[in-house]
């Protein structure tokens, strides 16, 4: 079934879009990542103009995150207090990121910076998680319980706050800075930033894995919501018809993903996410190293309807 998208001005297969939404929704529900880093390239692939793909996927991420957070709220696996602190940092970072993005765009090097940031950040995070979760899996198989709380430099910082749901008593500075950094990257890379936020929460802040997913989704809603409105107001690239079809697929997928997430063990979940991240990195590295079949590309200038 073909549908015509009013803002993108292309006709696409509705089931392809439902499928993309559903697949990304499942990942979002399972891992607490918004899925922006997967949905945007997939939309490019089926012929949606890049500017529309980036802006519209932001609104899709909002919807799948809302659906995911509802499921997590019900199971009381969202640390609202931690989410708010991360969010304050995130909005500051995203605001700065939008400015930086404009400067890079004027220099004509947005594509390159985005690709390199993907490779660097996804690469580091993916391999860290992979090694860590394999180690954890091996340990738990040997029967010894993994060490829960590590005392590091983070506990020496001032302005301590109690995060009861996470069972933490730490300074607000690390979550604020982490939120801001993720917000900055999120704005430049055009994604929710869950794939960076989740490892930061687990490894840097020491939050329990069960709470991490819901809390990450909670702050992603606001960061991507902010991005959606910004894109619509400045670039006019949010396609409401595309968004709705993606949303229906995505929201259903998110519920399925949350169900799968509760069935799997935390270590298995981490290995899966790490593998997924590493696959995306490999694809990106391959793309920039191998001579592309098509050297030329058409890009439309912003503000002319596309």
């Amino acid at each position, binding site marked *: 079934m073909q549908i015509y998208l009013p803002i993108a001005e*292309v006709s696409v297969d509705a089931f392809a879009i439902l499928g993309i939404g559903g697949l990304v929704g499942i990942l979002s529900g399972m891992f607490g990542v918004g899925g922006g880093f997967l949905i945007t390239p997939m939309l490019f692939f089926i012929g949606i103009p890049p500017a529309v793909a980036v802006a519209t996927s932001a609104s899709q991420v909002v919807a799948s995150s809302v659906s995911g957070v509802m499921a997590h709220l019900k199971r009381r696996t969202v640390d609202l207090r931690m989410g708010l602190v991360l969010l304050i940092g995130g909005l500051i970072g995203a605001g700065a990121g939008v400015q930086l993005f404009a400067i890079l765009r004027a220099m004509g090097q947005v594509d390159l910076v985005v690709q390199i940031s993907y490779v660097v950040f996804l690469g580091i995070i993916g391999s860290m998680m992979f090694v860590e979760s394999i180690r954890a899996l091996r340990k738990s198989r040997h029967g010894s319980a993994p060490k829960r709380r590590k005392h590091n430099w983070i506990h020496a910082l001032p302005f301590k706050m109690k995060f009861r749901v996470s069972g933490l008593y730490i300074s607000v500075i690390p979550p604020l800075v982490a939120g801001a950094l993720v917000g900055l990257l999120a704005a430049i890379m055009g994604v929710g930033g869950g794939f960076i936020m989740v490892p930061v929460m687990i490894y840097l802040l020491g939050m329990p894995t069960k709470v991490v997913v819901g809390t990450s989704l909670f702050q992603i809603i606001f960061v991507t919501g902010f991005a959606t409105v910004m894109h619509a107001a400045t670039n006019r690239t949010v396609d*409401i018809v595309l*968004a709705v079809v993606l949303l*229906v697929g995505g929201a259903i997928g998110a519920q399925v993903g949350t169900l799968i997430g509760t069935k799997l063990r935390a270590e298995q979940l981490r290995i899966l996410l790490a593998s997924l991240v590493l696959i995306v990195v490999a694809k990106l590295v391959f793309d*920039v190293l191998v001579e592309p079949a098509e050297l*030329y590309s058409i890009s439309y200038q912003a503000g002319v309807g596309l």
Partner: protein
Amino acid sequence: MRMLVAVFVYLSTLLPVWAEDVVAGFSQDSISITTNFSGSEILIFGAVRREAPIARDTNLEVVVTVSGPSRPVTMRRKERFGGIWINRAFAHIDAAPTFYAVATSAPYRDTISSVSDVLYSISLPRAFRNVAGGADHASGFLEALARLRAEEGLYQINENSIDLREDTLFSTSIALPANLVEGDYLVRIFLTREGRVISAHENTIAVRKVGIERAAYRLANEQPLLYGFLALLIAIAVGWLVSALFRMIRA
């Protein structure tokens, strides 16, 4: 000046000999883009009106062009730099038609001379305006643009696709792809003899979005902030609804 007058006088003496004129019609005057729009086809047909008997010494040919609204485009080319392939060279094209089709009644070169091609901007390269960004490789960018759009069915050169009968009746059909841009599509019909245009006829076909398509497009361009919040609201509502639905099913 005298030269110019001389040319006009010369041309005017030629005209009566080829007093042939186009009368044309289309299968549809407007095309509506609805939610399930998946492309369309327009049939362009017509007749040659003439006072004198048909001239047999030269061949009469017909050329039809259909052009969509023009928009600016930036073309980029990837180059190897420090071991990786990145976008390096680029060219800005101030105006490139979003759709362009040329149909002829004979091989292209036999229907129109290069002078007439320039004069009437008939072939595709004549439709591009103001190419900036390094003239030395600008042609490479234009070729690439033409190739990429031809692959999508947006640029078409259909030689020998006009059916011309008895040097009087002609018809052709032009396929419009699904990824059509809204606007007025200019249809031009030329009659040529020996590569020279002897009669030209112009008309437009309106391509318009209707219904939801129209409403969304207008709101996005006239009230962008409101549209952004609306998109956000819809996103949250759908996310919440599906979540509520799942809870109901599981309960």
